[in-house]
């Protein structure tokens, strides 16, 4: 430690200051990012690995219509609740929304046969029912992100007017696989998903992570160099560490869902073709008639515009809007950019429709 201190003292001033701000050599890097997903909540319902959380209200009064957040199947939900001051959940609570969230959980080997029907026709409706029972209301709004958005759209498209749905907000939800050219190319007819599933059961989290990274091949390196570029800004370093922790914390893809996503969605593009049948019923985007807001990121490499624009084009809602904000797939929902751009837009739209 003494030699490290002496070395620090001998370094040029900016480098020394940067290292001190990073807390090196004695700091715990994990401690720099802090605990994530800490907005107070209670678990009100479970089903297998699924947990339904209710966040403690932070206002003296709330909007009548509760909000259910549907997160992606392959990422941890705390991207929407990073740390105090950098949490979409906290933002909504402070704006007076009554917020619930689905945490799908990490599937294990015994869950490898879970399919889309289990999520869209069983688990999601069960959570909706629990939210309505817990809140005492007859309808709710859904805010859904990425694959969670696809699940919510499928549910709304299948249930139509029977769904107790007041508003639907999707964030970077893919609906048209023709816009997912990279994934279509990699998982085309020559991709043997059955071999992958036979070996692993569920698609391993590392596989999911590598597939997402391959969509932006130089992203990891660029992120590291960008961090070095801004190593003198403590909050940038902390934010980078938080996002880094989340980015490496993927969840395995349930085998049955993966099979259907590859065959029916990626290869068959069944949703926009109107041929996607779940539980004996065909999902029809035109059956979505509730107020709809689709938030998209300008530089989204995971859900490019070509894969998401059809939602608003084909939905049957009269009150529907698409809003494109600056940033990438993750920056749409988390980080300084989201705080300045997306969250206020979401609040402005949803608050008017939640009374």
């Amino acid at each position, binding site marked *: 430690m003494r030699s490290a201190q002496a070395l620090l003292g001998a370094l040029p001033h900016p480098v020394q200051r940067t290292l001190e701000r990073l807390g090196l050599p004695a700091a715990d890097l994990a401690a720099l990012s802090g605990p994530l997903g800490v907005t107070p909540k209670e678990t009100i319902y*479970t089903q297998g690995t699924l947990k339904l959380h209710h966040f403690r209200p932070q206002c003296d009064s709330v909007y*009548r219509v509760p909000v259910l957040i549907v997160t992606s199947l392959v990422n941890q939900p705390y991207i929407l609740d990073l740390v105090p001051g950098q949490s979409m959940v906290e933002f909504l609570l402070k704006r007076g929304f009554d917020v619930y969230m689905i945490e799908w959980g990490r599937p*294990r080997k015994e869950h490898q046969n879970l399919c889309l029907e289990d999520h869209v026709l069983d688990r999601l409706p069960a959570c909706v029912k629990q939210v309505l029972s817990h809140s005492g209301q007859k309808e709710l709004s859904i805010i859904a992100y990425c694959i969670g958005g696809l699940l919510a759209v499928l549910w709304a498209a299948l249930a139509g007017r029977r769904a107790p749905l007041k508003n639907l907000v999707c964030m970077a939800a893919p609906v048209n696989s023709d816009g997912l050219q990279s994934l279509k*190319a*990699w998982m*085309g007819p020559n991709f043997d998903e059955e071999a992958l599933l036979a070996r692993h059961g569920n698609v391993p989290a590392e596989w999911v992570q590598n597939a997402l990274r391959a969509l932006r091949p130089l992203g990891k390196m660029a992120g590291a160099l960008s961090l070095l570029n801004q190593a003198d*800004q403590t909050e940038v370093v902390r934010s980078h560490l938080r996002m880094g922790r989340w980015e490496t914390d993927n969840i395995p893809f349930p085998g049955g869902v993966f099979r259907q996503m590859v065959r029916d969605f990626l290869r068959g593009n069944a949703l926009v073709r109107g041929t996607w049948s779940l539980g004996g019923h065909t999902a029809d985007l035109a059956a979505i008639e509730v107020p709809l807001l689709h938030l998209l990121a300008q*530089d989204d490499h995971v859900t490019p515009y070509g894969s998401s624009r059809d939602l608003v084009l084909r939905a049957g809602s009269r009150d529907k809007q698409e809003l494109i904000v600056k940033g990438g797939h993750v920056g749409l929902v988390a980080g300084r950019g989201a705080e300045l751009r997306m969250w206020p837009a979401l609040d402005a739209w949803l*608050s008017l429709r939640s009374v």
Partner: protein
Amino acid sequence: MPSRDFNALSPVQIWRDWFVQCESQWSEALTQLLKDPRVGEPLNRQLSEVQFMHRQFAEFAQASLASFNLPSRSDLEVLDERMGRLEDGLAQVAAALSDLRRTLAARSPALAADEQAARPARTRRPAQKD
């Protein structure tokens, strides 16, 4: 903390802007290349072969680690699954306790006050714009 007195002509800012643009262009070029079936298909085959070799290595490593009485990846995966079941069990208990608290609050005025505090009135209105 915002950058100190950086402006558009600052060399550091110019470097950062160029770097971001460059990475974006390179990434886009590589992505377009990977989309090409002439690149994607051989890459897919290579990845399958790498996966096979990885599997062979994992089996060999497991046998070696077992002989030294050390845990292998699959041992840790089994442990991870057990911990996952424990977590799910704990979450079930938490949900049951939450339900019990609500039920008791419905029957007991003393507990009802606490429950009410956690359930504000649903009377909020959006801010009026002038």
